[in-house]
């Protein structure tokens, strides 16, 4: 009885590990409607509260929001699009990029 339980536990752990990778990831979201920094304050406010997000950058010229995930934590695409919509904007594309947050920020 114990062996199947251990196997189940290991399988479950592996699933969670996949969902929350043990590395810092950068997520880039293209957003429509971001033309005014005063109006886009909600984006900052919403993502700063998210426990999986350690850093947020809004780039009005490139029309993107960059998120840095905390090590071992992950924010889902649904959460990202939900927060963008709650801030009053239209998410167009969410992608995980290979660059570090600072590299992606520098463009």
């Amino acid at each position, binding site marked *: 009885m114990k062996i199947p339980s251990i196997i189940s536990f290991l399988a479950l752990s592996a699933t969670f590990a996949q969902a929350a990778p043990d590395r810092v990831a950068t997520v880039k979201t293209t957003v429509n409607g971001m*033309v005014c920094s005063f109006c*886009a304050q909600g984006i900052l406010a919403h993502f700063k509260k998210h426990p999986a997000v350690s850093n947020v950058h809004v780039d*009005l010229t490139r029309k993107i929001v960059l998120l840095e995930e905390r090590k071992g934590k992950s924010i889902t695409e649904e959460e990202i699009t939900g927060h963008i919509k709650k*801030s*009053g904007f239209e998410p167009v594309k969410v992608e995980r990029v290979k660059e570090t947050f600072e590299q992606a920020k520098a463009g």
Partner: protein
Amino acid sequence: MHRPVPLQPSSQFTTPERLKTISISIILAATAAAHPVAFEGAYQLMFGSTGDVQNIEFYRSYSAQTAWGLHAMRFEDDEDEIFTGLQHNWLLKRWNLPSAQANLYAGLGAGLAGDVGNGSSPAGIGFFRADYETRRVYTAFDAKWVESADVSRGVFSAAAGIAPYKAEFDQLNTWLILQAEHVTGMEDKLDILPKVRFFKGPYFLELGSTLRGKPVVNFMIHF
């Protein structure tokens, strides 16, 4: 509801009256900078003065399309008229375009309005707003009505502006704006208000003057 102090020559003011008048002037402060609905969960405080009309508005946006809160308006004419009440605002439609945003807003409210010192009666307020903005161009149209047994006012304004430079998210934004405003029942049919708009982070400030020399001040904050 507080009782505003009628305007008097400053020499007749006692210190408490002067302080009260200053407080009311600060508290009852503008319309064309209005941001009726912010992001979900936001509180927004707006106050200011455009010529003969002063506003203070405090709203809670409980979604990205809806907000409710308090609104006070003062019409400074031969007799000062004040409205205070509760108001609900709707973002009717937003167009989020790659390099622009356009919005239609409306609001309805109820409260009390009257001449200062002559009591007040039940009143209604309503507004409609349309705006279009890119990072370099701004246009807006506002229409607002206050109606009660003693007070009947409409405030109509149109504004257009340009940003001399494209500011990034963390930078100070500067706009040069020209606004035309008409308040029904006022002596001057049309006020022209050149003003400069600054915003950075959650802070927003407009400074200007009417062509008659009356100062224009608008302030907003989100938190």
